[in-house]
């Protein structure tokens, strides 16, 4: 270790110097002079696209007098990034007809300019680009585009019914991009482009991710082509934490911009995972360090994926369990690395990678932290093993988390499932007493599936049993956060006079399922009021009114 001490001192010194002038954004590459050749402009445009600076890329491409395959491909890439998929498809299809397969494969493999002294970027695979352009053009033909000019957010809605979500999406995207950008030292150029698609098939078509892979791993969003493509919360029956997902994907874009798309996958995913919750206020169950437990368990049970063996993407791993383990590993590894080297080392690493490119990860790691990746992995694994040994001699501090990690859906058995379904059926016909009776047997269970908990709470609420209802909306009673549970919690808290807590819960519920009726209507079901009036929502309290009307519309 001593032989790296000198390098580490130098690295820290360099970091201080660098960060003293950090302006929280990426320095743009100077625009080549008019005398500069088209090749230089092409290079600069390509780099601008990598750094998501579409305006500059457009300016550069406009100054290239002659067309050609490379120029048109860059233009097509630019078109895909700004959402003009039809234009990109047309541009590429004209070349596809004239281009021989050999030429296409050649351009896939060769760098743009064979100049070892200059930084060069591989062009996007033209066939993949064409496939994405065509898929996107088909999936988004006729889709509605809404722009929040104030926040600089551009959203294209595949399903026009999702347009009601624009204020939420714009606010979350703006806040998350700003916060994560500040955290990582790079702001995203505006507008932020978000494609909200209806389903996984559309996600695959718009991004180029194989549909089978998306279905296998449950991928719900992709940051690619300079934009975030997100599946609508409407697509899943109970919703999903779409706000954190959006933040996660925005973090990817920021990391790509900051590192000139040179960050290795473990760093990309670990960092995005780390940033996905840091931009917002804490929520219940945020504090669980389950990824740390999962990473350790995976290592102990010899089912670890491996930091350096993630493949092309976590979304392409064979099972959702593998993907979850991989996320836990990268997240925990990065936490360990930051813990060892500090936050500033991370920023320095990203800047160094931008200079060195994807091939220079090892050099950047050594220069910033003194060790190669394999050495860091060994150190991290060593610490996990050491922790396990020390834990085995004393009782665990967090038995509940361990239990949660190991058990598959605690509290779920066939009886619970049957009772839940009966409760759902009874609720549909407003038999709240019978519903409460069905769920009464769970009142003493410490940890409940949140679907059970919120229905039990709702039944008690309907029966006027506020204390019982409150008992079911305590965060420690549930196994995972759920939009409807949060909404019912808000309603219970409001009924008990805790307006601030209720408002917080209502807002938090929107982070999961803003299209569900009980979430959109602040804990009320449509059966309690007459749609399409927004029932419990007072006039003028947007976006609640719009959300509730949309959720209860026939």
């Amino acid at each position, binding site marked *: 270790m001593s032989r790296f001490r000198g390098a580490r001192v130098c690295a820290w010194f360099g970091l201080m110097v660098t960060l003293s002038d950090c302006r929280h954004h990426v320095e743009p590459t100077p625009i080549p002079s008019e005398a500069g050749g088209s090749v230089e402009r092409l290079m600069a445009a390509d780099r601008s696209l990598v750094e998501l600076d579409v305006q500059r890329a457009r300016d550069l491409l406009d100054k290239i007098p002659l067309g050609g395959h490379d120029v048109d491909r860059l233009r097509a890439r630019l078109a895909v990034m700004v959402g003009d998929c*039809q234009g990109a498809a047309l541009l590429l299809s004209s070349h596809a007809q004239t281009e021989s397969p050999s030429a296409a494969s050649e351009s896939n493999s060769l760098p743009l300019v064979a100049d070892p002294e200059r930084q060069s970027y591989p062009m996007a695979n033209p066939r993949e680009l064409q496939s994405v352009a065509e898929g996107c053009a*088909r*999936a988004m*033909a*006729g889709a509605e585009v809404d722009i929040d000019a104030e926040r600089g957010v551009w959203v294209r809605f*595949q*399903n*026009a*019914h999702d347009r009601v979500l624009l204020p939420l999406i714009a606010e979350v995207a703006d806040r998350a991009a700003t916060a994560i950008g500040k955290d990582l030292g790079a702001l995203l150029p505006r507008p932020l482009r978000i494609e909200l698609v*209806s*389903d*996984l098939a559309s996600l695959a078509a718009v991004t180029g991710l194989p549909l089978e892979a*998306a*279905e*296998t*791993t*449950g*991928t*719900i*969003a*992709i940051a690619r082509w300079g934009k975030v493509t997100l*599946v609508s919360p409407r*697509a*899943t029956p109970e919703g*999903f*934490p*779409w706000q*954190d*997902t959006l933040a996660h994907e925005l973090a990817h874009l920021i990391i790509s911009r900051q590192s000139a798309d040179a960050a290795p996958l473990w760093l990309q995913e670990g960092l995005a*995972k780390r940033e996905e919750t840091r931009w917002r206020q804490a929520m219940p169950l*945020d504090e669980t360090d*389950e990824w740390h437990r999962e990473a350790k368990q995976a290592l102990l049970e010899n089912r670890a994926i491996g930091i350096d063996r993630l493949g092309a993407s976590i*979304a392409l791993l064979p*099972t*959702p*369990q593998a*993907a*979850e383990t991989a996320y836990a590993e990268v997240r925990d590894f990065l936490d360990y690395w930051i813990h060892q080297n500090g936050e500033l080392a991370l920023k320095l690493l990203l800047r160094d990678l931008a200079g060195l490119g994807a091939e220079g990860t090892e050099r950047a790691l050594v220069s910033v932290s003194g060790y190669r990746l394999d050495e860091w992995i060994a150190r991290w694994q060593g610490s996990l093993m050491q922790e396990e040994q020390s834990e085995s001699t004393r009782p665990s501090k967090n038995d509940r988390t361990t239990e*949660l*990690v190991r058990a598959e*859906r*605690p509290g*779920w058995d*066939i009886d*619970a*499932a*049957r009772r839940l*379904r*009966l409760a759902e*059926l*009874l609720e549909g016909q407003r*038999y709240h*007493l*019978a519903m409460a009776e069905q769920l009464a047997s769970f009142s003493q269970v410490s940890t409940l*599936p*949140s*679907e059970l908990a919120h229905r039990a709470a709702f039944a008690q609420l309907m029966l006027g049993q506020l204390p019982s209802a409150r008992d079911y909306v305590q965060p420690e009673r549930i196994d*995972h*956060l*759920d939009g409807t549970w949060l909404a019912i919690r808000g309603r219970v808290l409001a009924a008990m006079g805790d307006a601030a807590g209720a408002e917080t819960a209502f807002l938090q519920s929107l982070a999961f399922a803003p299209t569900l009726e009980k979430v959109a209507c602040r804990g009320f079901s449509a059966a309690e009021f007459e749609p399409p009036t927004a029932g419990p929502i007072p006039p003028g309290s947007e976006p609640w009114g719009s959300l509730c009307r949309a959720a209860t519309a026939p």
Partner: protein
Amino acid sequence: MLGGVNASPELSDILVAWRGRMRSAAQRAWLAAALGVFLVAMLSGRQGTAATRLFAAGLLLAFLGCALGQWWWRRRRARHPLGEAIGIVRKVDQPLAKRLRRAVGLVERTHSHDERVSRELAELHLQRLLAQVPVALIESRATTQAARVKCVATGLLLAGLGVAATQGASLSEGFDVLLARHGMAPLSMQLLEIGPILVQPPAYLQAETGAIEFEGPASLPQGCLLTIHGVPRQEDRRLVLTDGQREVPFVHDAQGGVTAQYLLQQSARLRVAARFGQVLIPQDTEASIEAIIDRPPEVELDSAPKRVSIAEISELELRYHVADEHGIRQVDLVLRSGTREERRSLVRLDGKVQRHTGAHVLGMTDSFVVNGFGSVDVFVAARDDNNLSGANWGQSAVMTLDQPSLGHSQVQRYRRFDRLRRQLVDWFASFTAVERNPADLQRIQGETRVTFAEVAAGFEADKGAKRALSTFLRAQRNKLFRGEQPREFSAKTLSEVLLSVDATAEAIARRDAEQVARRLADVAVEIETGAKTALSSEQRDEGVVRVRTAMAWLASGAAELKQLGTLGDDLGEIAQAGWGRINKVFVARDFENVRRAAAFLAERLRRPMPSFVGGGRAGVESRSVGRGQGNRPRASEADQHLERVIVELQQLVREHASEVASLERVLGDAERAAVNEDLRPEARRHADAMRRLVEALPPLGAEPGSARATLALGKELVQGAAESLEQLRLVDAHAGLQKADAALAEAELLLGADHALTPAMEPNALAELRQRLTVHRDWVRRMLDTARGNSLKGSRDQLRLAGDRERELSDRAGRLAQRESKGDAVLPEDMRGDLEQASRLMRRASELLDQGRGPLALDQQRNAQKLLEREAPEPDPQQRSPASDGGRDDSNADARHSARGGKVVSTSDTESREDFRRRVQQGLSKEVQPDLSPAVRRYAEGLLK
């Protein structure tokens, strides 16, 4: 002015001397010229072209002009005879003529007051000069010249007359042509000696060739080929036959005449004419022929025109009547929806039948009806054999099938199930209430029982529903009710029934949603196709109509889809969003993007998966808060349990049918091997006796279903049995006699009803006949038993193995029945009882097989098989291939029917009967031999009664 001179006798002598001798010559010259001009004009004008006719007319006018000029000139010269005389003198004495000219000039000068010479003197001088003119010489010269002119003119005249004499007809034709207006000469001519017209009728009439006279009116069928023969009056004329519009040239017939053929397509006045350039010279006679137009077949479709809702019927029976004055060749069923059309041949005939009646059953699961967008027009079209101007189709009035929106029937089914589920929820809530209200409970029980019955009735009428569902419902009902009375049961039982119904309803909704989504994908493809059509400028309007029609269909279908449970809600949302995108670009007439959006939607709906699938949880890209989201156990496995039981039961039926067939094979082989050849003479005697017994029975061909037809069937069966007996095929002979006995028994019953039709056969005689046949059958049976007894000694091992297999199947049936006696049973009690009974029979069969008593074991097996087949639910009709809609689902001809060598259509099995009828109809639509068609038609008509 020269009056005195002009009147002088000298002058008159000169003129008379010349004129007197030249007049006749000049006249002859004019005549020759006139004749020449006329000949040239007529012959050139006969060419008939515009140029030659102009030339001829010009020539005649020019000649006329010349004649007039000459006349005018002579008149003018007659007023100045002195000048003419000087001219005459010049021909014989030029100096004298000059002197005369000067003298005339002198006289004229005296008239202009020239005082140097007196007038009288000048005239005198002139007269003296005139007196010097040698009149005799003039006479001589005039005589010579006149002779020359006469000679030439006469020559020309003779030549002209010669030409006129030889070309007289041409000259008259030329004259006629010159007078022609609008290409037709005014004067008709006799061009052709016309014989009778040969008339060859069109092939579809299948009539002999005839003849008619050319002159005079006639009526002939359209399409007749008329052949006209004649001998031309003049050679080298281009003779044609014309109706005023068309011309058919006459050609030489190699027998000195000419001939022309004319196809009669419409009424016509036929004339022979000679063509000269652009002019026709007609013959004076004409043939006026009226074409008798062949009308298309008249087609009547019973009850049409009419509108029918597809939701209200499971099939549409179409009865049609076709009539044609000559003969029907083909009858088609035509289905039309929007711009799509499909023609299906119902029957092909030989073109001789003038009346045809038929029927066709159109199932509402027909692929065209199912995949039609909007209403479907159904009509029958027929054509005769007349192909002269394309196929001659006649069509019936239209039956319009109004389609409810896509998914309508599935939604109705789901709603029925949902009503039952809600009823059960009411019951459950009331049942589990702390303070039960007995009256409420009783009311809800009654309502639930009614709902069960309604839902079951709904499934009976719903051809798309699985039969297994009815079985399932019966099982659930039996858990709650015994007959009309509720059973004693616990809340757990009620909750199990509720959850089973719930799980099954959702499973059905899920499957229906998948099915509707796939059909909506077809609609999206139609939109895509329409958009592609609209992109072509020539077919833009058609494309727009297609897109608009399909979009309306998509919108309504998506709304229905949204109501089909969770998956339906999800996919319906996708379809509605897709419709919104398509509509947006359609309104903007952006057909390229209409095509794209529709293609994407079609692709998506053809894969009817939920919007999100992925290990049961969303978002590996996102933070998973706590654990959970997915992996929730199912509250009830009833739907899967039902599927499993059905599969197991069907498998059991198939395997047992195979065992039955196997044992039949073993027994048959053994019997064949053991039949003693010594039996043959005795068998032949029995066969002969059997034949003699049925000799008096009527032959085949009677009205199907009648006593006579049944008797004929019995006769055939007995004769077939006799044939088998002669060949020592005892099994077949015995089976044939059994069937014959059954047929004769049926005939005995029928005879009471229609005895009038078969007076020769008394019921008593028939009973006696049956009795005599029984003697022969018993003999065959005895021989058969003996043969079996001998044969089975060698087949004991095979029978033992069959017994083992039968025992195993019996165990399986028993286990299935036992499993289905538990709380989560999906089979009703009666079915379970049958299953247990079948298990017992199978066990008994296995014991008999162990004892080597094959025939008895076979009987037990067959009884067990009947029970199994009665209980095994049919496979889901929705899972059948589309081909099964047309009755060609041969893959489903399962083994359970193959065991007994063919499926007999039960009269109580409506679906099978209709399938059979459909197959027969399809067979009838194939090309048939004319000599077979009446028999087949009689058969089909009998079948349809």
